[in-house]
């Protein structure tokens, strides 16, 4: 498997660390309530198909990445810098 890091280019999967669903970007407010936090930390859509997830180019440039990837075919539809996504949210 290969991911195209927006900074480094196409690289082997072994350079990357996988964390999980990109829901991790949507940290609830401290007082958002039990359900919001359970949703954030534990519950997952876990789709069989396209999904957004977080990877880290750990053995490369160090960027966290939002990867759009199909969990059934492993096809990658896009990779963006997590920082850009997070900044756009604010």
């Amino acid at each position, binding site marked *: 498997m290969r991911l195209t890091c927006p*900074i*480094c*280019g196409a*690289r*082997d999967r*072994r*350079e990357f660390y996988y964390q999980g669903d990109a829901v991790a970007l949507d940290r609830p407010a401290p007082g958002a309530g039990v359900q919001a936090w359970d949703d954030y930390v534990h519950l997952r859509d876990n789709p069989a198909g396209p999904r957004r997830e977080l990877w880290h*180019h*750990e*053995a*490369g*440039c*160090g*960027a966290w990445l939002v990867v759009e990837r199909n969990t059934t075919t492993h096809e990658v539809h896009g990779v963006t810098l997590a920082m850009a996504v997070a900044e756009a949210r604010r």
Partner: protein
Amino acid sequence: MGELVGTSPCAGVLPLTIGDVQAVEVELGHLTSIAPFAGQATAASVALEAAHGMPLPKANCTTGKEGARAIWFGRDMALLAGPTCDPAVAKHAALTDQSDAWAAVTLSGPSAEDVLARLVPVDLRSVSFKRGHTARTLLKHMNGSVTRLGPESFLILVFRSMARTLAHDLKEAMEAVAARG
């Protein structure tokens, strides 16, 4: 009591010459990581150029030349190798002394590319990885940095503590390449 004595990372494990490839530890001088603060990349680059004659490198590239080189070193970071970084740059960037953090080795010879092809999961052939190109990547199991210095010459940086493993991994790869003749 005498002065503290400095020891280089690869002392005792390099140099190595096997077949037509040499691995030699290199003294790069001062190493300073330069991480421009938010929105300060251009200013940091200008300051660097004013002080040391080269701008900050683009991703996967180096600027400067032997003795004073800026090596792209990761997201929003470059490594200045050679001079002590001018304090003027510190206004625009976090500067961190890394002079003792990295083992620096040049690998050179006609088969140097073949040796690195045993260790690095990036296409380092001269068609795609030209002089002045650099990559943050893996060397076997180690995180490191690889830069092409010339047609048959590369600069390799890995953590200082892993110098022995670098020598071990290079040696195995060099032997295997050399044995193919």
